């Protein structure tokens, strides 16, 4: 008989029982629907071993890689430690080792960690101040031996956390960081597939990480990045991106400005409009969308209608924290 551990509790999974059945029998609340592996309401994550492949059918490949599974069709093959998607594991501490303005509105923050930490570039973590104030930010770098995490933080007019980072956070200060979360990241394989990446504002952060990851893993298909902002203050890393485009023949960069009174040589228009009208079809493409939630909703639909498969569209919507409400992040 296999045992299922969730939080502090361990239960026996009876022969023929699924993980969902075991947990519901023990009065653990697990959202569920069809109980046939279709509706994906009962998504959970295995924290120790890989779940049975048969319990991952239909999940996004990035979620499969992170050991997500469907509890309703999971017959454990070994003991499992599991968690619901919103259950947070332990956080670790990291130290500020770099803080640099990229534009008047955007700061690059680099943290270093000592404890082993696994992540994919493009995932996000919750950064927590000592008094508990917490915000989510995307990781802009790939894992290296230096054990660093890079973030691009935009200063919001009333942003408690971002203003504190700008005005007060000092080198050497400590922050708690959560586990890395989110399914918007690169996976190797299908390396000839064309990639379309569209980001607004600091949505460039996860895309920058995803591009670095794809190039490091020798993705050979064309990689098209469209970065948009209303005005020049929101565009950053222009030189870095152009250098990257010079270095890699398959990487193409298009900065876009959507504001009225912009006087520059950048492409005029909203990044996703420019991006989606740049190609006849997205059939067979992999698409990454990061930034403004409304941009993502629109682009996701447009990309799908233009031929991209639903399973090939990866998104990370940046929801701005409401007053007194913690920053929330669509974790899909």
């Amino acid at each position, binding site marked *: 008989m296999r045992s299922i551990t969730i939080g502090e509790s361990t239960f026996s999974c009876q022969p023929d029982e699924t993980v969902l059945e075991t947990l519901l029998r023990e009065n653990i609340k697990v959202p569920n629907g*069809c*109980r*046939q592996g*279709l*509706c*994906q309401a009962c998504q959970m994550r295995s924290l120790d071993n890989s779940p049975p492949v048969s319990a991952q*059918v*239909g999940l*996004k490949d990035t979620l499969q890689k992170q050991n997500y599974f469907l509890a309703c069709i999971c017959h454990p093959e070994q003991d499992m430690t599991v968690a619901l998607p919103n259950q947070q594991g332990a956080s670790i501490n990291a130290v500020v080792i770099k803080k640099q303005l990229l534009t008047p509105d955007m700061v690059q923050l680099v943290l270093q960690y000592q404890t082993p930490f696994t992540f994919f570039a493009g995932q996000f973590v919750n950064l927590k101040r000592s008094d508990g104030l917490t915000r989510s930010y995307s990781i802009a770098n790939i894992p290296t031996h230096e054990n660093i995490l890079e973030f691009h933080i935009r200063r919001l007019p009333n942003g408690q956390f971002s203003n504190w980072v700008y005005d007060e956070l000092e080198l050497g200060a400590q922050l708690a960081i959560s586990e890395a979360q989110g399914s918007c990241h690169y996976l190797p394989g299908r390396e000839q597939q064309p990639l379309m990446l569209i980001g607004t504002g600091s949505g460039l952060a996860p895309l920058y990480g995803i591009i670095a990851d794809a190039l490091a893993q020798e993705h050979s298909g064309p990689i098209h990045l469209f970065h948009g902002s209303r005005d020049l203050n929101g565009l950053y890393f222009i030189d870095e991106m152009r250098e990257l485009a010079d270095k890699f023949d398959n990487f193409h960069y298009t900065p876009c400005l959507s504001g009225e009174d912009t006087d520059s040589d950048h492409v005029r228009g909203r990044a996703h409009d420019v991006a989606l009208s740049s190609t006849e079809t997205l059939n067979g493409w992999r698409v990454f969308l990061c930034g403004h939630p409304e941009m993502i*909703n629109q682009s*996701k*639909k447009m990309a*799908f*209608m233009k031929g991209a*498969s*639903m399973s090939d569209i990866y998104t990370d919507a940046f929801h701005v924290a409401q007053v007194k409400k913690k920053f929330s992040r669509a974790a*899909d």
Partner: protein
Amino acid sequence: MSDSQETTSNPSLYEQLGGEAAVNAAVDIFYRKVLGDYRINRFFDNSDMEKQAAKQKAFLTMAFGGPNNYSGKDMRNAHAHLVKMGLNASHFDIVMEHLGATLAELNVPQELIAQAAAIAESTRNDVLGK
């Protein structure tokens, strides 16, 4: 897959259609048709497209004669808010058209399309809350 299903000597409709692989091939095509149809897309326009696609997949699995646990009551409950939005028989007919067109696009033989359509048709009253 549920292994509690009865085994028969003849392959089931689901098997003849190609099982889960066929559903996967059909879901993007079907959902794209539905979302692209201005007459019905307001019933399918949901900011969470993944969840919507999962629902379409569940629907197709059922129509393909595959394993499903949906009861008539589930169907009623799941569509009640759409009936309030004005979902009626004409919309159901349009979805049926898209189902047939999707299968035709995948070169499914006409007699199998008819069988799948008959299964989908059997949910009409529950879906429309009649």
